[in-house]
Structures are given as structure tokens and as C-alpha cells.
């Protein structure tokens, strides 16, 4: 996957860190100190569609080749997460119990074109 730079226009991963102290949540979330709410953004023109290794299953790659071949279906594809991991949280619930949970698929590690 590609991380976005200042003037990236093509599909890439935009880093975005939410500091729990900044949003006033540090009193009930014990760990971690923030959440990497990265997201995918940018263009996926045809020549990037289905490049192997970028969110392309074999079926998608073949389908994109067919689309790319027929100019009539000249549509862009989408910039989506290709790898994600859980967000581990340790927090106080409403009864001041200590709860630890791993929320699946909350952190985007890489992006790619479908």
C-alpha cells in the first residue's frame, strides 16, 4: 500500500490520529492514548484497476482487464482498505468495571484499488 503525501491524488492511505486527551476521553479510556483512524482516499483510474497485490482477487483482476479492454465501460474503480487490524481498548464502563476488548478491523494498515 501507499501512504498519502501532501499532494497525493492517486489511491493511498491517509494517516489520521485521534488523541483521546484532545477529545476529553482520557478519563475513561485507560489504554491506548489514541486511535489511528487512518482512511483511504484518492483516484483509481483504469490503469490502476486490479493491479495484482492491490486489493485484486484473480476474479477481480480478470474482470478489470475486460473492463479496461472495452472502452465503453471506462469507469474508475474504488480506493479501499486492503489490510486492517483490531483496535485494543482498555476502558472503564458505566459501572467503573475495567473492560478490555479488541474491536476487529478498526485500524487501516494499507489501501488499494479494487
Amino acid at each position, binding site marked *: 500500500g501507499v501512504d498519502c503525501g501532501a499532494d497525493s491524488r492517486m489511491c493511498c492511505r491517509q494517516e*489520521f490520529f*485521534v488523541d483521546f486527551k484532545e477529545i476529553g476521553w482520557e478519563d*475513561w479510556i485507560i489504554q491506548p492514548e489514541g486511535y489511528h483512524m487512518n482512511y483511504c482516499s484518492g483516484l483509481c483510474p483504469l490503469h490502476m484497476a486490479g493491479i495484482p497485490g492491490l486489493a485484486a482477487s484473480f476474479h477481480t483482476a480478470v474482470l478489470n482487464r475486460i473492463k479496461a479492454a472495452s472502452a465503453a465501460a471506462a469507469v474508475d474503480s474504488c480506493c479501499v482498505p486492503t489490510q486492517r487490524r483490531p483496535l*485494543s481498548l482498555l476502558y*472503564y*464502563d458505566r*459501572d467503573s468495571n475495567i*473492560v478490555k476488548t479488541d474491536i476487529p478491523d478498526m485500524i487501516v494498515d494499507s489501501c488499494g484499488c479494487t
Partner: protein
Amino acid sequence: AAKGERCPACGVAALAPGAQRDALLALAKRSILAKLRLPGRPSVPQPPSRGSLLTALRTMLRDGAATPGMLRDAAATAGMSQDGRGTGLQEYELLSFAESGSSTSHSVHLHFRFSQEVARSSDIQQATLYLFWASPGRGSQPVTVRLLRADPAGPNLTVTGETRLEVQRPGWTALDIGAAVQSLFTQDTPRLTVQLEVPEGWGSPLPPHPSHSHWPFVVARAQARTPHRLRRR
């Protein structure tokens, strides 16, 4: 999209940087609360004393009840477990310290509350009650531990478990209460009451007050129920 242009995917005009940041922070809050099934952020908690927290974690570790992850994270020392590639089902570990209830000359009541959000959406995998006997009397002290559950139909309490112990010396006792806690998870207000009964005149074998570092606690592990997936051909 660059400033002043429109998003090529959805056509919405690009937000000014400040407005975009505010929108992303609001989205992050909504996303985390939704995944924790919380209607809003909890009010300011009354955290347990640091002594009782660390004592509880050491006791759980000695018994192997806490995964190192919880020990590490709750001790607020290391980073979070970044490599968790879980089963895809959300798992919870809960640590709940007792609230003092009513007491008489020969019995003490303790209450444990569990969050409705977790109770409604998950099944208990394991739950253990830890009791520390601070000062058993002369010789061995008979103690009856009863697990009570509020009766949805009325003010009574239903006994869901009973254990008779002979306390010989100061130290921890761990009791498996998984079935009792699971039966609570079907209630609107999942609250477990533990009654400790001793012979008349023996006095409570528990530590004297809730801020004591060896105060009773429950540790439980739960797993979200599998989401009902509708398959359509």
C-alpha cells in the same frame, strides 16, 4: 479532493481543513461508541484504588486467569497488543470490584454490576470470584458463599449457587461462577449479589473496607455472539 474541488467519488465539495478534522473526530467518536455498543461515553468513573487493581492483576496472573494482554494493558505500562488477529468475534475481559451491600452480625452482602452493553451481546466464557480471607478466627472458620440473582418478577433474590468453605488461614479463594454470571446476562440489569454467611459471633473474614488492596473482585471473559448472517443465493 483538493480545496474548492468536488470529490470524484461522491461529488461532495471538499471541506475546509478545520471542518474536515472536526468531522473526522466526530466520526471516530461515533465509530468507537458504536463498536462498544455504548449510547454515549460513560460518566466519569470511580476507578478502584491502585493497590487493589495491582493486587487483583497479580492474583489473576498467578492463577493464569488474566491473559498477559490484560495484565499488561491494565497495569498501564506497555502499549496495546498490536498483533491481535482475533477470531473476528469481539472478545471482552472484565474486572469488577465488589460494592458493599447490607450486613448483619453473621452475614455480608457484596454486589457486582456488569455492563448491559456487554451482557446483551455476548456469552460468558469464564468467570471467577476472588475472595481474600483477612482474618479467619481460631482454627478453621466455616463460611457459606451464596450467589444470588434478583428475581425479575419481584423484590426477592434467587439463589443460583452455594459453596461451603472451611477457611483455615489468611489467603485468596477462587470460585468458578461462570454459570451464575451467564444466567445474569439474560437480565436487563445484570447484577450479581454474593452473600457470605458465618456462624454467629465469628465476625466477617473479609478485609475491613472497599479501599483495602485485597478487596473481593470478579474477573470474566466473554465473547460476542456470532452475528446472524443471512445467506441469500
